[in-house]
C-alpha cells in the first residue's frame, strides 16, 4: 500500500494552520464573492411596480393582434386590474384613420383569463368578417368602463403591395426600446403601405414578471400613429418562458397577445391572401415533434398557394453571435425543401443578413435562403462574429439597434433595415423562389359562394411534371355579375382582380383569366343555374 505523498490532512487538520485553514479561508473568501454576485443578480431583477389605474375595471392598453387571416379577422386584447363581469369590443368601419367616424355598430364578446398571480385579467375578442384593406375603429369595454377609440387597418387585397415591420428582442433596455418604438412610428407614418408589426420574441427580461409586461405595453404605445395601431404578429422567445406554458396553461405571453396557451399553440400561419404566408414558429417548444410535422404540412400548402413564404422564430439557425440552435437541425431542411423566401430570426442582438444558403453552403440568390435578424428592438447590441462564412459579403453583420421593413410586391421582396435615426443600414432584394403565378394556370372549376365571393379551382404544373390544384378565394369587391337566366345574358364585361393577381373577366357567358403566366386560352364557358340557391357556377374546360 502506498501512503499519500501529501502531508495535508484536509479538514481533519488544525483550523488555523496547514491546508485546512487555507481551505477554510478560501471557502470564506470565495463564498462571500458568490453571495455578493448572487445578490447583485437578484437585486438587479427587482422592478418598481407601475402605477395602476384607480378603477380596477379600466381597460388597459387595447391592442390588435393578427393570427391566421389578417384580411378578414383580428383579435383585440386588453387587460384590467380587476376581473369585471362583462367584456366586449365595439367596432365598425371608419372612413379613414380618424378615430371618430360612424358609430361602431358591431360587438364582439371577449374571453378572459387571469394572470397567474391575479394582478391582471386578460380579455380578448376575435373580430371576424372584416373587409380587406379597411380601417376599423374599436373600443374595448369592461362593464361600464371603456377605452378610448383606436383604429387599425386590415391587410390589403391580394393584388396590392404591402410592407411589414419586423424586429426582435425589445428587452433589457426600456429607454432604447422606446427610441426604437418611435422609429417604428415614424416609418409607419411615412409609409402608408406598412400594415403590421412582426415581433421575433424576447419582449421583456422575464415573461413571468407582469411588471415587465406592463412597462413593455406602456412603451409599445409609442409605436401608435395617433389613434392608429399596427396589428402585431408575435412569436415566443426564451424570455417568455413560463412553467404554466409547459403545463399547457395560459401564461402572460398568451394573455398579452390573446393567444391560446400550451406548447403546441404558439405556432401558426398568417395568410395574407395568396400574396404571403408568414409562418410564426415557437423555437422554445419541441422543434422536431408535432411542430415540425405541422411546419411541413403548412409549407406544403403554402408552396402551392402563396407567392411568398416567410418564417419568423426566435432562435437562429445561422446566428451571428451564439452557436446555432436546433432550428438548423429540424427546420432548415424543410425551409430548403419548400423554398422558403426569407427566415427572420432573433436572439443574437445584432443586425445580420446572411448570404443565400442551401445545404449548409453559400448558394445563388435564386436558390439560397437568406436569414435576417437578429434582434435590435432595444436590447444591448453585441459584436457579431464576422468571420462566420455565412456573414461574408454580400451578407452583413453589425452591432446596431434597428428595425427591419419587409415589402412584398408581386415580383420582388425588398428587405430594408433602419437605424435609430431612420438611416438605411441594409437593403436586399430578391425574387420569389417559387414560380407561383408565372407558370401556365388552367381554370378547372369555379364556385360562386355568395355575392362578392367566388372560389376558383386552378391547376398549374409543379416541377414540370405533376399538376396540382390550388384554391383561390376572391373576397372583397363584388363581381358585378348577377345570376342570369342564361349564360348569354350575362353582363357584357365585369372584371376584378383575383387574389392571385390574375385578371378575371366574365364576358358573354365565358369566364376568362388573364395576366402574367396565365394561358390565354384559359377561358371556360359559364353555365348559370338560377335555381341553385348557393349560386354555384359549374364550369367545364
Amino acid at each position: 500500500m502506498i501512503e499519500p505523498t501529501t502531508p495535508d490532512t484536509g479538514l481533519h487538520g488544525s483550523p488555523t494552520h496547514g491546508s485546512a485553514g487555507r481551505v477554510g479561508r478560501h471557502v470564506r473568501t470565495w463564498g462571500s464573492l458568490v453571495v455578493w454576485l448572487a445578490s447583485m443578480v437578484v437585486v438587479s431583477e427587482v422592478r418598481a411596480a407601475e402605477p395602476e389605474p384607480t378603477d380596477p375595471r379600466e381597460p388597459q392598453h387595447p391592442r390588435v393582434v393578427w393570427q391566421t387571416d389578417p384580411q378578414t379577422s383580428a383579435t383585440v386584447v386588453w387587460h384590467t386590474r380587476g376581473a369585471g363581469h362583462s367584456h366586449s369590443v365595439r367596432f365598425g368601419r371608419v372612413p379613414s384613420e380618424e378615430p371618430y367616424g360612424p358609430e361602431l355598430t358591431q360587438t364582439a364578446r371577449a374571453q378572459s383569463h387571469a394572470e397567474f398571480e391575479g394582478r391582471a385579467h386578460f380579455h380578448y375578442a376575435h373580430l371576424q368578417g372584416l373587409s380587406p384593406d379597411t380601417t376599423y375603429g374599436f373600443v374595448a369595454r369592461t362593464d361600464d368602463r371603456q377605452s378610448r377609440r383606436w383604429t387599425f387597418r386590415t391587410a390589403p387585397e391580394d393584388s396590392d403591395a404591402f410592407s411589414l415591420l419586423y424586429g426582435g428582442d425589445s428587452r433589457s433596455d426600456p429607454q432604447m426600446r422606446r427610441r426604437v418604438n418611435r422609429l417604428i412610428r415614424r416609418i409607419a407614418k411615412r409609409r402608408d403601405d406598412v400594415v403590421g408589426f412582426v415581433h421575433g420574441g424576447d419582449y421583456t427580461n422575464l415573461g413571468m414578471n407582469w411588471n415587465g409586461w406592463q412597462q413593455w405595453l406602456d412603451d409599445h404605445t409609442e409605436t401608435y400613429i395617433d389613434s392608429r395601431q399596427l396589428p402585431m404578429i408575435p412569436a415566443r422567445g426564451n424570455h417568455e418562458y413560463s412553467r404554466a406554458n409547459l403545463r399547457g396553461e395560459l401564461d402572460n405571453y398568451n394573455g398579452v397577445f390573446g393567444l391560446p396557451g400550451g406548447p403546441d399553440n404558439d405556432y401558426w400561419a398568417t395568410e395574407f391572401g395568396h400574396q404571403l404566408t408568414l409562418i410564426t414558429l415557437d423555437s422554445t417548444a419541441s422543434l422536431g415533434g408535432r411542430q415540425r410535422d405541422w411546419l411541413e404540412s403548412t409549407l406544403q400548402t403554402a408552396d402551392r398557394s402563396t407567392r411568398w413564404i416567410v418564417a419568423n422564430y426566435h432562435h437562429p439557425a445561422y446566428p451571428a453571435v451564439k452557436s446555432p440552435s436546433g432550428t438548423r437541425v429540424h427546420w432548415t431542411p424543410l425551409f430548403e425543401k419548400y423554398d422558403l423566401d426569407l427566415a427572420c430570426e432573433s436572439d443574437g442582438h445584432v443586425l445580420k443578413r446572411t448570404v443565400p444558403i442551401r445545404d449548409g453552403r453559400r448558394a445563388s440568390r435564386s436558390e439560397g435562403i437568406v436569414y435576417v435578424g437578429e434582434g435590435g428592438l432595444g436590447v444591448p447590441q453585441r459584436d457579431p462574429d464576422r468571420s462566420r462564412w455565412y456573414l461574408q459579403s454580400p451578407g452583413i453583420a453589425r452591432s446596431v439597434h434597428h428595425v427591419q421593413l419587409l415589402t412584398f410586391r408581386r415580383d420582388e421582396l425588398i428587405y430594408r433595415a433602419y437605424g435609430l435615426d431612420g438611416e438605411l443600414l441594409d437593403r436586399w432584394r430578391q425574387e420569389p423562389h417559387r414560380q407561383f403565378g408565372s407558370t401556365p394556370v388552367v381554370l378547372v372549376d369555379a364556385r360562386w359562394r355568395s355575392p362578392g365571393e367566388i372560389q376558383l379551382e386552378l391547376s398549374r404544373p409543379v416541377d414540370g411534371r405533376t399538376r396540382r390544384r390550388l384554391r383561390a378565394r376572391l373576397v372583397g369587391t363584388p363581381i358585378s355579375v348577377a345570376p342570369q337566366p342564361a349564360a348569354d345574358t350575362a353582363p357584357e364585361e365585369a372584371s376584378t382582380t383575383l387574389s392571385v393577381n390574375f385578371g378575371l373577366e366574365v364576358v358573354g357567358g365565358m369566364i376568362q383569366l388573364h395576366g402574367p403566366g396565365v394561358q390565354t386560352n384559359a377561358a371556360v364557358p359559364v353555365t348559370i343555374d338560377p335555381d341553385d340557391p348557393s349560386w354555384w357556377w359549374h364550369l367545364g374546360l
Partner: protein
Amino acid sequence: MTGSGSAWTRAAASITPRRVLVWVVFIQIAGAAAAAYGGEIPVESWMLYRTGLRDPWLVVAADAMVWSCLAAALAGVVGYRAGWLWITVYFGIDAVIGMTVEVGAFMELTLPAHAVRIAAPLALVFAPDPDDDQPPGGSLHPVAIRLLMVAAGLTFAAHGIEAFAAHPRFVDYLVVFTHDGLGFEVAQSQLEVALKVIGVIDLAVALPALLLRRWSSVYAYMAIWGTIAAASRVVHGGLNGLPEMLIRSANGGVAAAIVIFLMVYDRTDDA
C-alpha cells in the same frame, strides 16, 4: 492494487477517483472554452445586461474567465488547491446566472442540474483521506465523496423532473436519435411517454444518492446514462453540440469517480 505486473492492471489501477475528476474538470473547461469561442457563455450575458460592459471587452472578459479556469486547473494539478476552488466558483456563478439571466425552460432547476459540474472541482479542493491506503493522488476525502454523491443525486433529480415534464429539448434529442440513429420515426406523444419513464428512472436512482447510499450499481447506471445524455448533444447538433457535451462531462464522470471509489477504495460496511 499495485501488485500485478500486467500493464492493463497497472493502467486500471491508475484510474483513481481523483484522476477521473481531474479529467472531468479539464474536459468541462475545454467545453466552456469551446462554448466561449463558438458563441456566448452565460457569464458574458450577465456582464452585458448587469454591468454595462460592452464588446470587445465582453469577449475579452469571457475569454479571460475561461483561460483563468484552465490556468487554475493546471495549478490544481500541481498542488494549489485554490485553483480547484476558483473553478468551483466559476461553475457556481455559471449556474446562478443560468437561474436568473439565461432564461429558458426549467431555468429554476439550473443549480441542481449543474451540481456535478460544481462538485467535481470542489471535491478536488479537499485533500485525500489521510487514513486511506492509496496511490499518490488517488482517493478522495470522505467529505468529498459525500459531496459528489449528493451532487450526482441532485443532477439526476433535476434531469428526472425535466424528463418527466417532457423538456422540449429532450424530445428533440429523442426525435433525432430515433430517426437518424434507429432509422424510424416515433410520434412525439410516444417520445413523451418514453421521457416519463426516463424521468422516473432518473428520480429513482437520484434518491439513494441523495441519501448517501453506497450502491455502486446506482452510480454505474448514472455514469453510463450521464455519458449517453451528454453525448446526445452531439448526436443532435453534430459538432455544434460538442461544447455542450464536453461541459456535461461531469454528468457521467462524477458518478464514474464514485463507482471507482466504492469498488476499489471504500471500506465502509454499507458498500
